[in-house]
């Protein structure tokens, strides 16, 4: 509880906000989440580092949800406690072929909800869940574009370790980009 020692400074208020861990829940998507989904999927500020193109219409969003979100092996809506509507997405994709011990995490949060620790909380919660649900999982990794400082900070705060810069690793918006590889091992996962 706040101690009322006169007027708190702006800095103190900011620190207080950052210390407050947001209560978030993760749940599967349904098509009725499309309005929430649209708040980030149509926003270039969120989608600019995504492999997926920014959606422009509700129909595009519905198609995207039907084709990519609903059949995904592990994709969750990020919901904050006071509202059932999703404010973001976190997904964990198993590695192809024989590498059953490895999976990659991705996430996105609607722009208006940035700066509250939501993505960090969601990534931690997702990591904990998949390490629990997939006993063969040993390595969870994530790649973020070198200049995507917001996402890189999320991964670092969630306990991922930076491993390497992979040059021209992914094509985003027609351009090959250098990506930073991050990893969280089940062995040193913070949630254990």
């Amino acid at each position: 509880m706040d101690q009322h020692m006169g007027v708190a400074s702006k800095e103190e208020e900011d620190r207080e906000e950052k210390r407050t861990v947001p209560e978030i829940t993760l749940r599967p998507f349904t098509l009725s989440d499309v309005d929430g989904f649209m708040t980030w999927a149509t926003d270039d500020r969120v989608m600019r580092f995504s492999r997926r193109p920014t959606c422009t219409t509700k129909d595009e969003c519905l198609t995207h949800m039907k084709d990519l979100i609903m059949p995904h092996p592990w994709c969750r809506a990020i919901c904050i406690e006071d509202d059932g509507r999703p404010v973001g997405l976190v997904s964990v994709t198993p590695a192809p072929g024989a590498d059953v011990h490895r999976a990659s995490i991705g996430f996105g949060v609607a722009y208006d909800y940035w700066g509250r620790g939501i993505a960090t909380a969601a990534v931690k919660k997702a990591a904990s869940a998949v390490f629990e649900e997939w006993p063969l999982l040993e390595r969870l990794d994530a790649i973020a574009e070198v200049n995507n400082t917001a996402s890189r900070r999320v991964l670092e705060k969630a306990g991922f370790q930076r491993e390497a810069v992979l040059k021209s690793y992914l094509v985003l918006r027609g351009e090959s980009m250098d990506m930073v590889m991050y990893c969280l091992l089940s062995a040193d996962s913070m949630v254990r």
Partner: protein
Amino acid sequence: MQTDSSAVPPNHDHRKQEPEITLRPFDLSDVGAFMTWASDPRVTRFQRRGPCTSEEDARRYLTDHVLPHPWYRAICVDGSPVGSINAKPGQGEERFKASIAYRLAYQHWGRGIATAALRAAVSSLLEEWPHLERLEAIAEVENPASQRVLEKAGFLREGPLRKYVMLRGKSRDVVMYSLLATGPKLR
């Protein structure tokens, strides 16, 4: 990182020391030569699959995997196959990159053959696949010989990736290497 030896050589004899190798596709008549390295645990030690146990096994592997492969070549010295090198292109939106792997018969180690084969393969691939931007290769952390080969061939060490690949029943730490199409030209 040491200087790439494809830059100005320190002496005229430098090039004479690098073996003359050629790359060509395999055919079934290569099965005998193929067995030489494919059945040798010293060579297969760092591979995903274990050694070939019989000529039958090797023939099946050639037919099912090598011959239909997008890019699989025999490394030849004086026209005889002494190893193999292959490149696997990415699918769909990843087709701008390819991963390279190679193996060499044990008796030919230590002569620069793998390095020469990598250079030749890179040169061919960049020409045959003009959309290629990134070539990558991995070497297990416990395989410094292969790491040196990749470095001598001009690949850049990007960093160790922990428990990245499942090999021989266990998740292994590997070092990722890359060579970019836009990088320094190889001779």
